[in-house]
């Protein structure tokens, strides 16, 4: 009975971590002389209060889920991909280019090609970092962060120059955006809201990623390399190859997120010139969602909805009680810190269970702890 309570407690750790972050947020709100209850009510209302709000939450959750799926793959392979932002951008650029070029082609074909293009674009951008890690020992955290910055500049260059909307190019004050996609190229909407087909695509992919990770040899090897590169090498797994594959796949999902943002939401590629102008920081927040979902593709679904809700709610909180939505960014950071910190409790209870000799369920894998660099020495 006690161990059941214990495992329930560890399963709920992310929820407790979030509540802790919200509690810290409440203290911060008090300092800002805002009633926390009022602020959080505005947040809830904004996220779930109406059909439109709910649809908006799901629309915001979609890129988070796609990025999170990629993160599940890479983090399970002990590859820390921080490059979601850049991968989204490159995927979106490629997808947008396809839509603006193949104007004569049938809609369904162009959309399919564009989503594939997004997938590929992200895969290339992530794959480069994977290649550099596997064969040149370049720390992937650093290379993906650098590649984010490079992608942002590349996007600004293209949207202000070669890919700018011809109408916009005529004006004196130019918004960096491409021309609109043809109406036939839009992802179909699911209800009389902004909810689009991308939401379903993301959920289906979550199931597929689950199957990939736990029901295929490829997924098994990625996880094996992540858990113990030494043993994997002795078992004949080509460790380097799976590092590249992990980052490649991880990038691909972010790239798809970028493509879906263009084809499902904006119908053009547009930014405000800032680093997160196009992505809305989904490349970072997807990491938060994946960690929250314990790096499990299916748990990442509710996790993404939660963070989508926080983002949508943050805007309504800003409107109603005049608290900048940056508060929610800060709280997201705290959630990450709290979730990784609470891992220690899960490890402890796992150890206790093992020590008691009652290994009822296979132990959940930890977050990757053994850096790959060691395996190569």
């Amino acid at each position, binding site marked *: 009975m006690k161990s059941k309570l214990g495992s329930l407690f560890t399963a709920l750790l992310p929820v407790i971590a979030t509540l802790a972050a919200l509690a810290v947020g409440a203290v*911060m709100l008090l300092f*800002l002389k805002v009633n926390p209850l009022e602020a959080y009510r505005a947040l809830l209302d904004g996220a779930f209060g109406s059909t439109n709000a709910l649809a908006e939450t799901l629309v915001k959750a979609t890129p988070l889920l796609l990025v999170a799926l990629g993160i599940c793959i890479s983090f399970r392979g002990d590859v*820390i991909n*921080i490059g979601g932002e850049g991968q989204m951008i490159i995927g979106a650029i490629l997808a947008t280019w396809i839509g603006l070029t193949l104007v004569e082609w049938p809609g369904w074909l162009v959309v399919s090609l564009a989503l594939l293009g997004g997938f590929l674009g992200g895969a290339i951008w992530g794959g480069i970092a994977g290649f*550099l890690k596997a064969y*040149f*020992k*370049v*720390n992937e*955290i*650093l*290379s993906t*962060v*650098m*590649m*984010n*910055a*490079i992608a942002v*500049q*590349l996007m*600004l*260059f293209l949207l*202000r*120059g070669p890919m700018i909307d011809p109408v916009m190019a005529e004006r004196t004050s130019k918004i960096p955006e491409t021309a609109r996609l043809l109406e036939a190229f839009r992802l179909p909407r699911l209800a009389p809201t902004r909810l689009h087909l991308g939401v379903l695509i993301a959920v289906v992919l979550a199931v597929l990623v689950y199957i990939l990770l736990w029901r295929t040899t490829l997924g098994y090897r990625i996880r094996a390399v992540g858990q113990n590169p030494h043993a994997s090498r002795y078992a004949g797994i080509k460790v380097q190859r799976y590092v590249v594959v992990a980052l490649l796949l991880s990038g691909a999902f972010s790239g798809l997120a970028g493509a879906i943002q263009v084809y499902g939401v904006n119908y053009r590629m547009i930014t405000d010139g*800032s*680093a997160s102008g196009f992505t809305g920081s989904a490349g*970072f927040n997807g*990491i*938060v969602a994946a*960690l929250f979902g314990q790096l499990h593709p299916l748990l990442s679904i509710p996790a993404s909805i939660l963070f989508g809700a926080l983002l949508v709610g943050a805007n309504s909180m800003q409107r109603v009680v005049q608290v*900048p939505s*940056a*508060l*929610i*960014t*800060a*709280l*997201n*950071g*705290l*959630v*990450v*810190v709290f979730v*990784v*910190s609470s*891992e*220690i409790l899960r490890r402890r209870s796992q150890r206790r269970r093992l020590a008691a000799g009652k290994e009822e369920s296979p132990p959940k894998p930890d*977050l*990757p*702890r053994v*850096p790959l*660099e060691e395996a190569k*020495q």
Partner: protein
Amino acid sequence: MISELFSTTVLIGILASGIRLATPYLYAGIGETFSQKSGVLNLGVEGQMLLGCFAAFYVVFTSGNLWLGVLAAMLVGALMGLAMAFVTVNLHAQQGISGIGFYIFGLGMSDLLFQKLMGTVETVQGFPKIHIPGLSDIPGLGEIFFSQNILVYGSYLLVPLAWFVLNKTTLGLKIRSVGENPDAADSLGVSVARVRYFTIILGGTLSGLAGASLSIALLNVFQQNMTSGLGFIAVALVYFGAWRPVGVLAGALLFSMINSLQIWIQVLGIPVPSEIAVMMPYVLTILVLVATVSKVRAPSALTRPFERED
């Protein structure tokens, strides 16, 4: 137009601002060297810098006291370091990810405080250039090396100081042993936890100072996300510099010079798209990491939490 780039005045300008712009890289990079030497990868540098930027700027904006601003930035950085130390040393949290958490926290928090406490972009009177009689008047060299502000000089003094502490003192020996072989260090009575707390808090303090150097000594403004990746480059410089202060100095100078060149290219209106110019330092970071990283060995215990075997 390209030829303008090679006139003496422009060259002096590029070098002088290159020397100046290395400052935040140096403070943050040297701080990160300490924590990595002890086996801790602190990826929260960018967040610590942003909060340092804001703390320094806000204190100077409201009080007008520059040194109080520096102190505030260092204090904020130290507090962030303390939190990072608790999470990574006591709770054994995955260092890379918790660092990212602290980065996102600093990003949001500095933005929130800026919007709530200030709202609009303001400027302050930052640290003035120091005129060194005689030296500052040497043509060319005087402008490049001897008419910078105090925080710039401080960052260069930090390099030999860090080298000395790391290589010639007992403290340095402890730091290195904890980073290379924490078990052995522990068995010899060195407190791994205490050493790591020290280096992480020191790293945070210096990151805060790096932020202050941006907002009250170099740019004299505060804007949302004004570090824009600078803190991450500082972390990369530690790898680039092979965990040696002098190496960090070399990397910092390389970067700041390229940055300075890129700024001057835009000032002179040379037709290179600004985006491509801004991109260059990042591309260079990656290339440099490719060229150097595989040849040097990181501290053995880097990113590994220490847990005493019972």
